[in-house]
């Protein structure tokens, strides 16, 4: 949706506050570079009449030209902040691409840290990686990017840390200007009929909002970094719920993909309508009303018990 300039323009027209571009994936850039190089080299220096098959031009380096171009053009086209999202694998990739994105004019960066802790590093002597190592790696990435750029940096946080609160605080300490809760990992699946792996791409549903809301409610007020909610925003009620939990920012992707860019306008007007109905004149009046910071364990347990009971009665809790 935001992958092309037209989409970005439509989103801006829908009066959204900011636009996060789809992630730039380092592996994709690298894979493409490798694929280019393989195609480039095939048949070279083999036959006297055709020592090469393409003009010897620059521009096939792993420099993510297309993405940077999108950033540049989006920034030039729309007047809302354009936030670039970055998903890298190598230390050099994170910092180099972050700098490029900053130069391209991105208003802020979202770090989409995704790795499978099952995968040991190539140099690891043991086929295991500890939780501490995973966390340290993520903190390092953030710190390195922060050192490389001057624009605000948000981390799209994984829901699978043992202690989310601790990680949120550590991210903040390492310089995060924002935390996005949560990263949704698109795990591939297995198709038993075709005996093949299938991609994990799927849109989120309102139920996916529960986990981030619970944690935003926990973190609101405990961290100074902005808290952005991600996942499960289908209608204005979901937006309101996130704000009640304490989110500074509410993000939506799946609903826009389902209903089109104009759905953003519907969300905004729905929120206004909800506020009118509940007598709220501004966001400040209700943001964080349900924040549970400081009562993490109790709050969560309480929610857990409530949910189980509700489930027994066949009710929906949110």
């Amino acid at each position: 949706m935001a992958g092309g300039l037209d989409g970005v323009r439509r989103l801006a027209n829908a009066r959204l506050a900011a636009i996060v571009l789809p992630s730039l994936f380092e592996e994709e850039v690298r894979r493409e570079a490798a694929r280019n190089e393989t195609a480039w080299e095939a048949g070279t220096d083999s036959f006297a009449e055709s020592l090469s098959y393409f003009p010897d031009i620059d521009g096939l380096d792993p420099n993510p030209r297309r993405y940077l171009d999108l950033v540049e053009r989006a920034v030039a086209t729309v007047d809302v902040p354009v936030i670039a999202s970055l998903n890298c694998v190598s230390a050099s990739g994170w910092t180099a691409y972050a700098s490029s994105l900053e130069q391209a004019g991105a208003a802020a960066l979202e770090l989409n840290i995704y790795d499978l802790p099952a995968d040991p590093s190539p140099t690891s002597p043991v086929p295991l990686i500890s939780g501490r190592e995973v966390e340290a790696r993520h903190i390092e990435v953030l710190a390195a990017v922060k050192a490389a750029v001057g624009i605000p940096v948000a981390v799209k946080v994984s829901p699978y840390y043992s202690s989310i609160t601790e990680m949120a605080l550590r991210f903040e300490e390492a310089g995060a200007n924002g935390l996005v809760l949560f990263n949704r990992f698109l795990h591939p699946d297995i198709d038993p009929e075709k005996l093949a792996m299938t991609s994990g791409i799927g849109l989120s549903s309102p139920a996916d909002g529960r986990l981030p809301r619970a944690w935003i409610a926990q973190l609101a007020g405990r961290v100074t970094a902005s808290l952005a909610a991600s996942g499960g925003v289908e209608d204005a009620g979901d937006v309101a719920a996130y704000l009640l939990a304490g989110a500074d920012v509410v993000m939506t992707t799946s609903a826009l993909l389902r209903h089109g860019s104009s759905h953003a306008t519907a969300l905004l007007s729905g929120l206004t309508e909800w506020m009118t109905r509940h007598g709220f004149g501004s966001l400040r009046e209700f943001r964080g009303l349900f924040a549970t910071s400081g009562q993490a364990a109790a709050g969560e347990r309480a929610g857990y018990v409530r949910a189980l009971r509700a489930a027994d009665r066949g009710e929906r809790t949110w």
Partner: protein
Amino acid sequence: MRATMDGNEAAASVAYRLNEVCCIYPITPSSPMAELADEWSSQGRPNLWGSVPSVMEMQSEGGAAGALHGALQSGALATTFTASQGLLLMIPNMYKIAGELTPAVMHVAARSLATQGLSIFGDHADVMAVRQTGFAMLASASVQEAHDLALVAQAASLGTRVPFVHFFDGFRTSHELNTIEVLPDDDLRALIPEELIRAHRSRALSPEHPFIRGTAQNPDTYFQARETVNPFYAQVPGAVTAAMDALAARTGRHYETISYTGDPAAERVIVIMGSGAQTAAETARYLAGQGERVGVVTVRLFRPFPAADLLAALPPTVRQVAVLDRTKEPGSLGEPLFLDVLGALAEAHAAGTLAVMPVVTGGRYGLSSKEFTPGMVAAVFADLAAAHPKPRFTVGITDDVGGTSLDYGELDIEPPGTVRAVFFGLGSDGTVGANKNTIKILGSDRGLHAQGYFVYDSKKSGSQTVSHLRFGPDPIRAPYLVQNASFVGCHQAELIERVDVLSRAAPGATLLLNTPRPPEEVWDSLPRPVQEQILAKGATLYAIDATQVARDAGLPGRINTVLQTCFFAISGVLPAGEAIAAIKAAIAKSYARRGAEVVARNNAAVDQAVSALHQVPVPGRVTTNRGLPALVPADAPDFVQRVTAEMMAGRGDALPVSALPVDGTYPSGTTAFEKRNISDLVAEWDPDLCIQCGNCSFVCPHSVIRAKFYDESDLAGAPDSFASMPLDARGLPDTRYSLQVYVEDCTGCALCVEACPVQAPGEPGKHAINLAPREPLVAAQRESIAFFEQLPPNNRARVDFGTVRGTQYLQPLFEFSGACAGCGETPYLKLLSQLFGDRLMIANATGCSSIYGGNQPTTPWAADAEGRGPAWSNSLFEDNAEFGLGFRLAADLHLGLALARLAQLREQIGPDLVDEIVAAPQRRESEFAAQRARIAELGRRLDGLPAGEPAVADLRSVLDQLVRRSVWLVGGDGWAYDIGSGGLDHVLASGRNVNVLVLDTEVYSNTGGQSSKATPLGAVAKFAASGKHVPKKDLALQAIAYGNVYVARVAMGADPQQTLHALREAEAYDGPSLIIAYSHCIAHGIEMRDGMGQQYRAVASGYWPMIRYDPELRAAGANPFLLDSPRPRIPLSDYTSRELRYRILAQRDPAESERLMALAEREVQQRWAVYEEMATRGPAWFPADARPAAAGSTPEGVEVTDGSVLPVSGPGAAEPAGRVGVADGGRPGRGPAAG
């Protein structure tokens, strides 16, 4: 500034900076000059005066010369780059440009002309063919000279208004890397006064001060007008000298129009021009140093011939002169340079200015880049010392027919400080690229001089390369291959069995072998002749398993970095640490675009290389009796044994004149004797899964997958390895089916695997044909192939070759070509040979298909068991349609002659037989068989008639024409869309029965990917580096406009059945036919195994709509335009994003790519709409065939069949009992991307 570059770049660097317009057209070996100009222009690089030269690719060299002429007449500084036939196409305009006294320089990488054979290599045949045009001619002998004299030529041309050809030897100079001093812009400016440029502009055509130039003249004044230019030519030698002096003053590099090297009191002198002059001069210097009274005159300015400079250069002591020409003029008194020198000396002697008239002999050397070495120079000097030197001679060959050749030996004159190395590798292993890096490392930054020259074989797949490298403290003036190398790298273990890698090794040399064997096993693994040579030369042996090191470093197959490191480690040309740092710097530069990871892996390979390198102890004796394997089977024909095998072994240079055919005629089908084993992975058939659909065999570009059906009883004696299964056809019980893979010829391209519709249950990716390691299969499969070959060939009349399934039983008469692995062109040619091979005549335009189809030493067009097969020939690039039309004209005429003689002899022969022959239908295979039987009978009856009767002899000489010939004009898009477009158009308009097959790769594939008018919108190609801005020409619609041309656009990867229909309908149609065949290509930047998949996507996206236009349908009252494609069902980007040619622009300039691809998408839709509309029109909307109906050619209908059993069959028809190959209902074609 010092830099290492080749001659093409050296010349282009100056030409580009000194011109405003470059009119270009690709031709080897000059193409890189044009490519560089185009690249620089697309990068916005300015010329000397700040403007970016306009680079214009034309449709032919004739077009380039015309555009050049126009640009010059309009006041631009303009140039062109060309060679060989291209230069010949420029001749008419060269006369004009010179006749109008227009300053310009053409840069020529001099190359042989096509005579008894085409050759892309270097000699002076082309430039000698323009010496009469009025162009001045300046010859460069080295890479540095190609740089410097490009400037001198431009300066002298502007100064005198006489245009120049600046030439240097193709490949030897154009492709030799050498360290040169680069001319800075200031030097260029100093030699090119701006007032001369303004004077040139002031002479331009302009409506502001009109005049007329290019008039027609009459007997009264043409002659006198021709003589007006003499004073301008008289100034040229002086102007060239002045420019050379000015250059010397700025650079210290001094040249003369004619220069002398050697003993100042020499008695024997060689006169020579081009790169050979450098070899001769260095040899003369060496021999003079040994006390011989010899010298060499180097000619740089050849036209106007500077006789005075020649006389001044020759020492007065000269008594014998040998003039060496790098060309041949059959029937002349002598070659051009010889005649000029002889004339100049004779005239001077007669005039009294030359006291003693020396003996002058003329010799030929170096044709088609034949080596010219110091030993040969010494032989010429030795001959001059004889009492009676040979008046005409050759040197460098053994002429046992004319006795012209001089004997020569080896002479090593190179300075001891020069390191010489040779490397044997494969094109795919990166050896050449690594060596180019090595040269740049040593040549550019380290104060050393470096030279590199690379020899490639004639195959496009699995080709061998030999790199010749020299390094030294002094400039390297040795334009010949390395002899006496101190270092020999053999980068592929198997090469040591096939190539004499040690033949160029000096005593005490080091041999580095890449081998998987541990060091202790290496020695014993070497064949006896190799062991003997190592012992005889006292060589040191090193071994490394570079393949393993590369794999460990994460670079499978890329052994170049490892072996480059080993070279530095062993040779010691640089201190170890410095070498490693330099290699890593080069890696960082080369692989930057592949990302940090690839750089890191290459660096790891460097680090691991040295520790994996082992010196192999050489025992003092041979330890094996194992000889080298035979190159060709012992039962190969005599010519193959004596000649072909020698060429294959790299010993073609030693073949004497008598060994070779006098007129360029060679036996067909010699690839069958060359088992190249170029792929580690080969196709393997799985009969348990096979459904006998024939798809694998259909798409195989190398004809390595063959099928036969045969009686069960024929299986007796089959080797265990021979696989067989019951034939899947009704009505033929007890019949078996076998699919045989010719494993030694398989290139492992995997097109067959991708085409196989069978998917093994539970084993993803496994098909009924799969790739498997070759080595374990070879021995057993050799037996299987032998058994398969003795099975009787399938009777063509029993095969329904209206189906893909049926075609697999037809013997391909095009096999094992050297085309790229996975080539998209060759499957069409193979099919052509299967369908019509025994009566097929092919006129083949120059291009990929003429190279893999006709390049020595082995050629793929073959014959069947009856000895019949395609008659194939290549004329030129530009004239192929006309050439093929000539085939038709001759065939028609001789058929007419045969019919006339038959009528004349009707009673004597027997009226029944004659009438049957004359009336015989010839469309089905059974009918051809019957006609052949009648003709055999006719031959027997003619034996009984008086032999002396002219009509009988006449008839006998044209008897074969009574079998209808199938004439095909084959070529690529460069031919059909560009250079041959006019001729093709004319031939299509002729109404004659010729069939045109355009193998459309959408780019000049053979010369390395230059844009043609078939290149699609938005694709990047050479000469379209910013993306093609004009859509592809719709050749099909152009041809359809004539109304009587059968036209088809096909893509076998999308619908093989439609391809088959089109070929057969075209052949059956009694008129011109045009088939445009989508041919995926390595120049598209695709994974070749996905080639057929891309064909499918090209069709599915609507980019390549499959159509047929059949005039016979119109005649029958039906719509002749058939749209065979379904509606576009995938986005264009699904097709384009898989090809580098499109991705390049998307990555370099995304906005521009988006713009162009949006236009391309719209163009696809618009064209589709037009086609769809045409497909629904009535026949009356299309032009009618106005030709009178020919007797005997009444079409039988649209359906073309071959069946002898049923009159009509084909897809959907009832399957006749006892016939093989009818598809089971639907079309066997499948979209490879369907999965």
